[in-house]
């Protein structure tokens, strides 16, 4: 047993911290969030230059071939600084979907483009009847000659508005089980019939409604055999889910730190509010939630890296915890901060907003507990 970071991970963490500390003060987070696209192209280019888009991609396809835990260390730091970018969706989820399902030629073409930052990929899974299991993928794709034709709507899709390509899950046939009949396509975001709309609200990373109106996709853009993509997609989402959990652990820790520090400087009745039991209780809630989030996330990443038999249970444990821990840490932090906490220039709401968004993304706690029940054969 050794819970320390490797020297590579320490270096990754240090460089990520240094970069984000300089580039992403809370004022910049707010500027980016308030911008029309929520996307900072200049920062994205710097992330590419740091090699972050290539971390999860094998060396054979232009990547660095680092481990999931390595990526998790960077993700935790990104979460700590409330960074928003298509990194998870492009360089982890989409990249792994292609890696798991794609042909050699597709891997070479797409993964190289993702790794060197030439292209941004999004992955479109969820629909108006929102949910994360295979039964919620209902959008259809029909085979016509050398093309597939896609019709339907994908909803809450992160970063589709800035993506060059979208990995789309669609149903090409009905099977005996919901897992059967699901196919993955790489769709050019600018193809005829594809439209994106940025969704509005109290949302962290930007999400889109993506409509497909008789979109013709060459059969060569099908990833793997038709109707058999679910296992590959599940493996890809597991990796992204564990890394997202690490991101959420970083955010939860920052929410804890903010309330701990504020409780030391805010004076009420002549003494720091950290003297009061109710305030202490909330600081402790934030601390324990963020610790639970961190350790379950890193255990899941370790299980993926070492290909443990129980890795799927580990990933769902991590996300079930992260989905609730991040918002609980933020809510406890708000209880400590009072009025200042809801001032959007103060910084705490950067985390609150993301906690509520990522609570659902890649499956909420209820979904992952149900998945665990199935995997544990309850």
């Amino acid at each position, binding site marked *: 047993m050794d*819970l*320390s970071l490797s020297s590579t991970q320490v270096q990754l963490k240090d460089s990520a911290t240094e970069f984000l500390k300089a580039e992403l003060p809370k004022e910049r987070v707010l500027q980016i969030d308030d911008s029309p696209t929520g996307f900072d192209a200049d920062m994205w280019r710097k992330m590419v230059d740091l090699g972050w888009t290539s971390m999860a991609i094998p060396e054979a396809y232009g990547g660095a071939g680092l481990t999931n835990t390595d990526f998790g260390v960077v993700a935790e730091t990104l979460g700590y600084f409330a960074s928003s970018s298509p990194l998870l969706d492009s360089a982890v989820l989409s990249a792994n979907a292609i890696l798991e399902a794609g042909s050699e030629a597709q891997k070479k073409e797409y993964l190289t483009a993702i790794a060197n930052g030439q292209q941004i990929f999004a992955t479109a899974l969820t629909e108006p009847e929102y949910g994360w299991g295979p039964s919620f993928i209902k959008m259809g794709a029909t085979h016509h000659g050398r093309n597939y034709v896609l019709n339907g709507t994908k909803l809450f899709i992160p970063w589709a508005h800035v993506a060059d390509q979208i990995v789309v899950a669609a149903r090409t046939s009905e099977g005996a089980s919901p897992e059967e009949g699901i196919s993955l396509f790489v769709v050019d975001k600018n193809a005829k019939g594809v439209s994106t709309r940025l969704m509005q609200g109290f949302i962290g990373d930007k999400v889109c409604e993506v409509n497909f109106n008789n979109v013709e996709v060459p059969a060569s853009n099908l990833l793997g055999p038709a109707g058999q993509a679910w296992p590959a997609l599940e493996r890809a989402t597991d990796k992204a889910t564990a890394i997202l959990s690490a991101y959420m652990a970083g955010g939860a820790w920052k929410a804890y730190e903010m309330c701990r520090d504020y409780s030391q400087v805010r004076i009420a009745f002549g003494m720091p509010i*950290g003297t009061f*039991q109710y305030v*202490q209780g909330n600081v402790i809630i934030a601390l324990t939630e963020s610790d639970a989030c*961190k350790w379950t996330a890193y255990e899941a990443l370790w299980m993926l890296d070492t290909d443990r038999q129980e890795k799927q249970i580990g990933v769902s*444990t991590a996300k079930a915890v992260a989905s609730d821990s991040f918002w609980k840490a933020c809510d406890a932090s708000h209880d400590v901060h009072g009025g200042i906490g809801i001032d959007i220039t103060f910084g705490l709401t950067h985390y609150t907003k993301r906690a509520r968004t990522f609570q659902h993304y890649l499956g909420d706690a209820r979904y992952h507990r149900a998945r665990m029940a199935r995997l544990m054969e309850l």
Partner: protein
Amino acid sequence: MDFEYRYSEEQEQFRSEVSAWLDANLPEGLAGAAGAAMLDSPGWEQCQNFRRRIGEKGWLALNIDLALVFLEELGKRKLGWLLDDGSSAIQSALQRWGTENQKKSYLPLIADGEANVWRLLTEPGVRLDVGSLGIRAYREGDEIILNGQDTFAGQGLWPDYLWAIAVINPDFPPHRATSSFLVPSGLKGISIQTPRTLVPGQTNLVTFDHVVVYPDALLGDEGSGWSVMQTALQAPQTIQYPIAEDAEVGDLLQYAKDTVRDGASLGKDLVLQQLLVEAHINSRITRLFKMRNAWLASTGQKITYELAQTALWEKQISMRLSRIVRDVMGMYALLDPQDPRAAVKGKLEFQQRSSLATQNPSAVPEPYAVAIADALGLGKGQQGEQKIASPGTPTGASGSGDV
């Protein structure tokens, strides 16, 4: 990172030996018990005899690595509680603070399972509240007189020795106010009452009425009693790597799989599934927290809030598990082992009582919250603030950035 404990060849060989011996020698009566507190008088006698036999094997004084294997093998047989008697803490205190005479007198007895030691009820990492200590000590020539009453924890119906903390210098600062004593329980003036609580025998009131001891009963320096006990409770050999899975949660999950209601197993009920998995996740978090604590201790890193955090977490989830057990099992959760309709040998009825007792053995969870707040420096303003980062872990370096 590596979340798996790697066993040496020596450990694996020892495991084979222990496993074979336990299979051949484990008394039937002990196999069904969920804890020492479930044992009646004959059961406790059987338990003591078994501990002596373990002691004869030399397995009550193992090094950390072999002790872990032994605990795991007991845990597989749901008997991890057999060693949950605090003996590792007193052994640790004797090894570090004991005089040569004390080591010679007590360590072999403890290692042989011949000495049952109860200690003052306190938890690692908890702040000393001198006013809450019930025993006072004062010198009278060569003698030290102990007076007062306090709560002690330990296994069994009667202790052989008491490890007490007494206030000896009431006017001194707290860190110099107390002394630690290891005394035979049969001394004149000592009386023990076991209150009738939800878990009989978990806590005991011990009264010292002008009990005369000599300086050789002091464990550690005079005035440093609290520090001696706290140091022992936080020693690496006391903070052990978590053994096996949570037996209560395991029993509950198995019950849900095996029990059919209205044509389907309880585990298939969508609402109950959520609760069952929540219980499983909570026990996983406990295990990870304990793993972290053991790793910090074994690598010599500073432990600040972690032990109190784990204790507080365990108390909270114990109550939560209690509710989940009732939701899943219904009335069956309340049947004890004596009822022929009892499920899971009545072990989860014990959980219903023990969760309340765990929550409040001597106090509410507040001492743990205070201990964490102290470790975080809360309430001390910027001067007293200690920025806590989990050492060596990813968030450790995160503390440097301001958003």
